[in-house]
């Protein structure tokens, strides 16, 4: 890009100079084959290293350990980090949703207590929205919070809570008024996941790693001071949380699966019809189309950076990333597995393959991408309704009762 300002280019140079010496310790190659636990431990060290150098929480206020910079520096930093394969994903939820919400709505004392350690990677936060009875339809949550003097008592069950087993705290939406219309009866809290009455049970995913969990709340006491926003304001805040998430989508670490280079190398070795597979038109078509798609996504990100630099909000086109990335990943991974033939079946879950480096894992993880953080269908609804002005679905839940 020619259009970034000299200041931002200088920032990028500083970031690169900071990161490059750490590649051997934290980069893609160093992480190959690490167990999830070891990778998280490595990630904590990397987060602490960033914090020491002033690069954790780039957009957070300096009084809480941040760098007080803009989204722009953040996007540049994250892109460089992702390019080197550093382990940053474990803090994406903490630092993209719960902590920014806390910065917006918590008391100064609470911020001082929670934000700096979260930035240093000492705490991990979860987002406890989904429940067994509801995911897409967020306003349908059933977990109850009942007022008891200065406290609330929470009971119910959350599910699909990413990293809850490693988490110290979380943000939660619970029903505080069962008689109000469903969007109005919810309230937003933050909770101590180590508190009495909280049980976390990891759930094994289809690729066999357990990144998410069930979380049970059995009369868990939460002080009213841990309520964010007004009573009954929970749905609005939950939606606000998901909106903040949008900014980080462009920096999605898992993106497209293994780089296209890996497919090309594979196709150079593999044979089709007695010739190198790389000469096969079907393989070349996959390469060309994947390249064109990736470049299109890159251009959309670059455009968002410039929008931010020009002081505008980036458009909602960022939501395209997950949708298109998951499809592209599928095409590339299937092509690679096909080329491997029966060897494509090899998958050793115990070696903790990662979607960025292993085609089988990339393919195994693809269904996840289509669901987590909003399903394809919900994303398309958002594009259609918010961007294109098409009508909302038939919503019997909104009919007057």
């Amino acid at each position: 890009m020619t259009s970034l300002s000299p200041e931002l280019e200088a920032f990028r140079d500083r970031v690169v100079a900071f990161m490059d010496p750490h590649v051997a310790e934290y980069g893609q190659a160093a992480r190959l084959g690490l167990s999830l636990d070891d990778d998280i431990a490595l990630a904590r060290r990397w987060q602490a290293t960033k914090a020491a150098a002033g690069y954790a929480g780039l957009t957070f206020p300096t009084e809480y350990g941040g760098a007080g910079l803009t989204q722009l520096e953040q996007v540049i930093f994250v892109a460089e980090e992702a390019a080197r394969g550093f382990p940053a994903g474990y803090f994406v939820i903490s630092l993209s949703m719960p902590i920014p919400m806390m910065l917006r709505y918590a008391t100064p004392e609470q911020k001082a207590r929670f934000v700096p350690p979260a930035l240093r990677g000492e705490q991990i936060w979860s987002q406890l929205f989904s429940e067994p009875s509801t995911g897409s339809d967020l306003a349908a949550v059933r977990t109850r919070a009942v007022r008891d003097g200065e406290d609330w008592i929470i009971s119910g069950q959350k599910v699909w809570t990413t990293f809850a087993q490693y988490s110290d705290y979380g943000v939660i939406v619970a029903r505080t008024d069962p008689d109000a219309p469903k969007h109005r009866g919810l309230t937003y809290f933050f909770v101590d996941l180590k508190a009495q009455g909280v049980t976390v049970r990891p759930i094994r995913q289809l690729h066999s790693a357990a990144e998410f969990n069930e979380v049970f709340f059995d009369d868990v006491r939460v002080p009213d001071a841990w309520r964010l926003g007004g009573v009954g304001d929970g749905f609005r805040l939950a939606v606000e949380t998901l909106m903040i998430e949008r900014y980080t989508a462009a920096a999605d670490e898992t993106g497209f699966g293994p780089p296209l280079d890996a497919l090309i190398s594979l196709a150079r070795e593999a044979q089709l019809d007695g010739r190198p597979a790389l000469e096969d038109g079907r393989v070349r078509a996959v390469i060309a189309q994947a390249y064109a798609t990736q470049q299109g996504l890159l251009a959309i990100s670059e455009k968002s950076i410039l929008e931010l630099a020009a002081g505008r909000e980036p458009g909602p086109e960022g939501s395209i990333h997950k949708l298109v990335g998951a499809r592209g990943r599928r095409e590339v991974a299937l092509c690679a597995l096909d080329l491997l033939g029966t060897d494509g079946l090899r998958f050793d879950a115990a070696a903790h393959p990662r979607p960025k480096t292993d085609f089988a894992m990339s393919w195994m993880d693809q269904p996840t991408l289509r669901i987590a953080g909003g399903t394809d269908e919900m994303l398309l609804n958002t594009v259609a309704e918010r961007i294109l002005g098409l009508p909302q679905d038939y919503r019997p839940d909104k009919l007057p009762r």
Partner: protein
Amino acid sequence: MPFLLDDDHRQIVQEAERVLSDGWSPDGLRHLLERVGAHDDRFWTTCRDMGWTGITISEDHGGLGLGPIALCLTAEVVGRFVGGAPFLSTGYGVSEALRRFGSNDQQGRYLAGLANGERTGAIDLTSALDGGERLAWTDGRLSGATGLVAAGAWADLLVTVARDTATGGDVLVLVALDEQAHPEPVQTFDNSRGYAVLHFNSAPAEVLATEHAGDAALELLARVAVIVAFEQLGGAEACMERARNFANERQAFGQPIGKFQAIKHRIAEMYVANELARGNALRAALSLRDDAGDLVLRAGAARLTAIDAYEFAATEAIQTHGAIGITWEHDLHLFFRRSRALALELGGRGPWQDVVARRVIAGVAA
């Protein structure tokens, strides 16, 4: 900064939209379809009056000297209206060939006419994509027949890549399409593009480049492909908007059909495809402006996503409209035809996939 349009750019777009919505509607195109070798004079006059023919040609030669971004944006607007003549993009191919390879004398002779639209240009460069069959060039004379050339039925000048019969190498040449060339207009599904096969029988042709002429031809083709990607994007956007508007109005089973997700999601998918195409087109436009990056690769990415976006939008917009969408009277078939015409006339998906794949693969060390 083309990724974000500045005020000048916005003005170009607004002006173009204003003029075209006043003086031109796709209606004008319908009757062209039934004739071979026709184009819309009124549309072309508008292009000339607006100076679009000379956007990228320097002021010295009577152009506006505005650079390729302005032309890209204009092409996008023209695409929205399914403009009734291909000269903007093909003419750009010829004036770029002259700007990059022409002698002072050649530029002096031809550019002013191209700038004011008195002369029109066509290109025949798709053989550079795949080393396909070429015209023969012997001692300054051209022989043989081209494939289907857009604007071939009317253009005054043609740039093509030919085979030098003496050396067996490529040569990039400029040939005047006067009596010496015999255009044979061809019936096509988009007759407004003036497709013709050109027959040469020892027609005098001027040399533009002999060294790396094949590469030069490919790069010229890529440059035109970027302009066309914007035209495709404009068409795709127009189809999406029509589909969206119709889905908001048309009622079935007691509700707007836009409430049915099968419809609603399809329109959202158009948006997604269009944005990918736009991203690539803008990137390629930056390359055009700055002569930077691998232009052919960027043009290829722009072309592949633009082909996908336009065809998807045109096809699915018709589906969204139901039976009204397939009637002659409805505009959508104009876009539908044009989407495929633009996908083919600079070389279809296959050869461009090959070009892109070849370059991506070459970028990865063995």
